C-alpha cells in the first residue's frame, strides 16, 4: 500500500492546526510554513501523478478496512491531475496572498490549509459519504476565507453563500440516503456493481437520488439554475480567495465526471447515462447566461465571475457529451479555465489596489500606477478566458468543438460556443478599453499608491498566465495524458477491480 496517497490530506490537516495554534501571533512563521506545505503538496502531487500516469489505479484503505466496508482513497489519472492542478494554483495564489491580504483578518493560512485538505480529500476519496464530509470540510474553510477581511458587503455575500451551500448539503444527504436505500452501499466502486442490479420497482428511487446528486454537484459547479450564488460570492470574496475558488467550481465538475462515468455509465442498465439529458441543456444555458453577464457587468470582479460561469458551461457541455474524446477536451479546458480564472481574479485585485476609491468598477478615472503592465496582464488573461488564439483557451474550445462534431445537437453546441466567445470578447474589450485606454487619456493620477511596489503580486498573476502559455506550448503531451485519463474513465471496470479486488465481488 502506497502511503503517499493519504499525504495530500494529512499534510494540510497537520499544518493547519499547527499554524492556528502555535503561529497565531507570528505571521512570518505562518507564511513560511504555509508556503512550504503547499510547495510540498505540489511536489508530492507530481510524484503521485508520475505514479498514476502508468495507468495503474492505486487504492489506500483507511484503517486497513477492506473496500466496500471501510473508506478507500483512490488515486487514478484524473485524481492525480486534479491534485497537481490544485497544488499549483494554490501555491501561486498563496504567493499573492502573503503580500498583505493574509494580515487583513485572522487565521488566513490555517483556513487556507484546511481548504486544501478538503479539496484534496474530495479528489481522492472513493466513498460518497466521505465525499460529503470532505465537501463540508472545504466549505467550512471557504466560509471563513470568504469573509476574511470583513466589511458589510462581503459578510452579506458570505451569509448568502453559506445558506446556499447549507441547503446544498441537505440535498446531498437526501440524495445519499435515496441511493443507499436501494443499493445498500456508499462505496463508489461498489455502487458501480450494484446499480445494474437494482430492480425495476426501485429504479425511480435510484434515479431520483442520482439526479438530486447531480443538482448538488451543479450547485458547486454553478450550473444554471443554481448558479446565482457565484457572482455575488466571487466578486465580494478577497482576491486570493476568489482565485482559489476557481478550483472549487471544478470540484463540482470533478464529482459529476467521477460519479456519472463510474456508476451510471454504459453498464448501469436502466440508469445508464441518466445525467446527460439534464446536464446538456443546463450547460448550454449556463454558457449563454455567463457570457451575457460578462457583457453586462459593471465591475471587473463581476465580469470575471460571470466568465467563470460561462467557462463552467463550456466545460460541462463537453462533459455532457460523455464520449472519451469530449471528456479529454473537457479536462483540457478544465485545466485552462482554472488557471485563467485564477489569473484574472488576481489581475482584478491589482487594478482595484491601484485605484483607491474606484476599486474594480468599470469607470473612466485618472491613469493609475503601472497601468500598462497591469493592462498587459489583463489583456493576456482576457484572451485566454475568451478563447482567442494563441493561448490555451483557443486550443480548449477547438478540442471541444471538434469532439462535438458528430453529437446529436452539434448545431446548438457550435453556435452557442462560437457566439458566446464573441460576447466574451466584446465584454472584455469594453471593460479593458474603459479601464486602461480611456483612463490613460484622463488628466491627474491616483496619488495614494506607494511608489515602492512589491513585485510578488504581479509575478504571481504572471505565473498563472505563464501556466496557460505552457499549457498551449505543451498541448500535445497534455492531451496525450488526458486521452489516457478519459480512456480510464470510460473503462470503469478497472476502477472497480482496483477497489474491490480483481474478482469484483463483494465478499
Amino acid at each position, binding site marked *: 500500500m502506497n502511503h503517499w496517497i493519504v499525504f495530500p490530506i494529512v499534510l494540510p490537516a497537520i499544518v493547519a492546526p499547527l499554524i492556528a495554534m502555535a503561529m497565531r501571533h507570528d505571521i512570518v512563521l505562518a507564511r513560511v510554513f504555509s508556503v512550504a506545505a503547499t510547495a510540498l503538496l505540489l511536489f508530492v502531487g507530481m510524484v503521485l501523478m508520475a505514479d498514476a500516469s502508468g495507468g495503474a489505479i492505486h487504492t489506500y484503505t483507511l484503517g486497513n478496512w477492506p473496500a466496500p466496508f471501510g473508506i478507500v482513497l483512490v488515486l487514478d489519472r484524473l485524481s492525480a491531475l486534479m491534485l497537481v492542478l490544485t497544488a499549483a494554483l494554490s501555491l501561486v495564489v498563496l504567493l499573492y496572498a502573503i503580500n498583505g491580504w493574509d494580515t487583513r483578518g485572522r487565521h488566513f493560512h490555517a483556513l487556507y490549509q484546511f481548504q486544501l485538505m478538503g479539496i484534496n480529500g474530495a479528489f481522492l476519496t472513493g466513498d460518497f459519504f466521505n465525499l460529503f464530509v470532505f465537501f463540508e470540510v472545504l466549505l467550512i474553510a471557504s466560509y471563513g476565507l470568504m469573509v476574511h477581511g470583513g*466589511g458589510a458587503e462581503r459578510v452579506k455575500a458570505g451569509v448568502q453563500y453559506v445558506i446556499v451551500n447549507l441547503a446544498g448539503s441537505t440535498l446531498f444527504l437526501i440524495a445519499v440516503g435515496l441511493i443507499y436505500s436501494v443499493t445498500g452501499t456508499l462505496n463508489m466502486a461498489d455502487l458501480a456493481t450494484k446499480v445494474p442490479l437494482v430492480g425495476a420497482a426501485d429504479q425511480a428511487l435510484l434515479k431520483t437520488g442520482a439526479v438530486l446528486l447531480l443538482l448538488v454537484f451543479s450547485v458547486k459547479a454553478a450550473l444554471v439554475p443554481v448558479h446565482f450564488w457565484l457572482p455575488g460570492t466571487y466578486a465580494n470574496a478577497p482576491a486570493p480567495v476568489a482565485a482559489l475558488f476557481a478550483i472549487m467550481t471544478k470540484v463540482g465538475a470533478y464529482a459529476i465526471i467521477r460519479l456519472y462515468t463510474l456508476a451510471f455509465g454504459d453498464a448501469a442498465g436502466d440508469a445508464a447515462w441518466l445525467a446527460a439529458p439534464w446536464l446538456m441543456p443546463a450547460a448550454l444555458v449556463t454558457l449563454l447566461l455567463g457570457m451575457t453577464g460578462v457583457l453586462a457587468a459593471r465591475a471587473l470582479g463581476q465580469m470575471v465571475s460571470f466568465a467563470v460561469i460561462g467557462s463552467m458551461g463550456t466545460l460541462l457541455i463537453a462533459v455532457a457529451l460523455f464520449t472519451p474524446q469530449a471528456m479529454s477536451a473537457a479536462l483540457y479546458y478544465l485545466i485552462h479555465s482554472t488557471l485563467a480564472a485564477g489569473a484574472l481574479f488576481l489581475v482584478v485585485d491589482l487594478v482595484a489596489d491601484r485605484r483607491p476609491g474606484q476599486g474594480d468598477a468599470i469607470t473612466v478615472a485618472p491613469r493609475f500606477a503601472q497601468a500598462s503592465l497591469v493592462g498587459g496582464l489583463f489583456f493576456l488573461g482576457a484572451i485566454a478566458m475568451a478563447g482567442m488564439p494563441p493561448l490555451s483557451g483557443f486550443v480548449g474550445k477547438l478540442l471541444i468543438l471538434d469532439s462535438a462534431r458528430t453529437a446529436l445537437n452539434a448545431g446548438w453546441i457550435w453556435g452557442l460556443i462560437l457566439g458566446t466567445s464573441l460576447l466574451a470578447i466584446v465584454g472584455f474589450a469594453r471593460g479593458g478599453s474603459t479601464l486602461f485606454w480611456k483612463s490613460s487619456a484622463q488628466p491627474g493620477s491616483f496619488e495614494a499608491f506607494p511608489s515602492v511596489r512589491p513585485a510578488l503580486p504581479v509575478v504571481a498573476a504572471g505565473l498563472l498566465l505563464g501556466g496557460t502559455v505552457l499549457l498551449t506550448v505543451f498541448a500535445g503531451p497534455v492531451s496525450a495524458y488526458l486521452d489516457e485519463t478519459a480512456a480510464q474513465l470510460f473503462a470503469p471496470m478497472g476502477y472497480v477491480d482496483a477497489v474491490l479486488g480483481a474478482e469484483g465481488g463483494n465478499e
Partner: protein
Amino acid sequence: MEFLVASAVGLLAAAGVYLLLRARTFPVVLGLALLSYAVNVFLFSMGRLTVNLPPVIGDAGNGYTDPLPQALVLTAIVISFGMTALIVVMALRSYLESGTDHVGIEPVDGAEGESQP
C-alpha cells in the same frame, strides 16, 4: 409507523423550505435547522424502519437494524449543529455591519433597516 415517519419528514421539510424562502436571517436559520432535522430522520429511515432489533447480526437470526445510517446521522447531526452555530454568528455579524437582516446582496427598499452604501 412508515406513514408517521414519512409525514414527519415531509412536514419538517415543507416548513423548512418555507422558512428558508423568507429571506430574513432568523427564519432562514430556523428553516435550515428544520431541514436538517428532516434530513436526519430521513437518513435514519433509509436503512429500513425496524423496531426492537439490535444493530448487530445475532445468532438467533431474527434480523437486525442497519447500523450504518445511525453512524451517518451522527455525522450529519454534528456537521449541521456546527453549521447552524456558524450561520448564526455570520448572520449577527452581517446584521451589525449592514444594519439589515435581509439575505441577499442588495437589500430590498422599504425595509426597516437602512443599508450602508
